[in-house]
């Protein structure tokens, strides 16, 4: 068996070199894993603020525009009570009934209610036009499905809408009909 000069000097890695490279590799892998885990936990923390950051202000703008156009409101315990105009309360209401006076003197109504539809909590909007005989059975549209609880209150003399997110975050908006 002949060895050429260059091949004779080729040798494998020593145990120390192998151990060192494996330790380095493990160190790098651990560092990357830690960074990924950290990033994921921070992303999760950031996502917990999504309701306060994105949804609540949008709901506020929408409801404020709606309430500003109304000339009267009442607060009720449930959607069905709001439709019937019964069981009005000043606090812990789940449905807000709004009345809009039209230019011809007639009225149309709207209900913004927090309710559970098909197992999903949502803030719904119902509309009853001046020529409609009854309320629609299903909401005309869903304002948002993000709040965990919505409380309508008039305990302080002004309309307050308290929005609670699913992580216990809370924000309260207030307003008066025009």
């Amino acid at each position: 068996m002949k060895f050429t000069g260059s091949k004779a000097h080729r040798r494998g890695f020593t145990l120390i070199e192998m151990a060192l490279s494996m330790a380095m590799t493990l160190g790098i892998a651990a560092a990357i894993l830690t960074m990924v885990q950290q990033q994921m936990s921070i992303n999760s923390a950031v996502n917990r603020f999504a309701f306060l950051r994105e949804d609540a202000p949008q709901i506020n703008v929408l409801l404020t525009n709606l309430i500003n156009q109304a000339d009267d409101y009442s607060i009720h315990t449930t959607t069905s009570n709001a439709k019937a105009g019964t069981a009005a309360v000043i606090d812990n209401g789940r449905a807000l009934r709004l009345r809009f006076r039209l230019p011809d003197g007639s009225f149309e109504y709207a209900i913004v209610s927090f309710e559970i539809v098909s197992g999903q909590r949502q803030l719904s909007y119902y509309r009853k036009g001046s020529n409609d005989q009854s309320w629609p059975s299903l909401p005309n549209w869903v304002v948002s499905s993000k709040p965990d609880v919505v409380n309508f209150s008039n305990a302080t003399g002004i309309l307050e809408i308290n929005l609670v997110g699913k992580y216990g975050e809370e924000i309260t908006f207030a307003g008066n009909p025009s």
Partner: protein
Amino acid sequence: MYRNRKHHSKRKGYALIEIAASYAAIVIVGLVTLRSTLNNITGQQWTVKQAMTDAYLTRETALASRMPFANIRIGSSPWPVYPSVSTQTVVVGKLPGGDNVTASLHRTRIADGNNLGSGGGSGSNDTNPTNTEAWKLQSVLVYKVREKEYVKTRTILRIR
């Protein structure tokens, strides 16, 4: 033989540099990621507090507009006559987990210059024959985002 050994030791040196470079790259990537994340979180805190304080001030505006005029000008008015200022700590909202977010609310009311003397002004029956009385109700909300302090104010004019 000597040349080969030298060449081999050079290769070892390169390996050390490569490992050091990869560690440095990881540290740099980690720091950049951390910094951008911290920037995001700071921006988020700012946005959330803006939303909460804006919401709280809708309450102040609504209260100042709706409160009976007689209750505004009595001694126990929530808006005392300037330069007196009422100060209270208020909860403007709750963070995920239920922690309160607080701010400092300052209220005062400023008489219109043409109010009669009884209304805090210097007007007379000549300048104000209908005894019109006007007050500016001012609410100032002071809150902090990290170490920076911010101020928001709303002023409502009430006239009778």
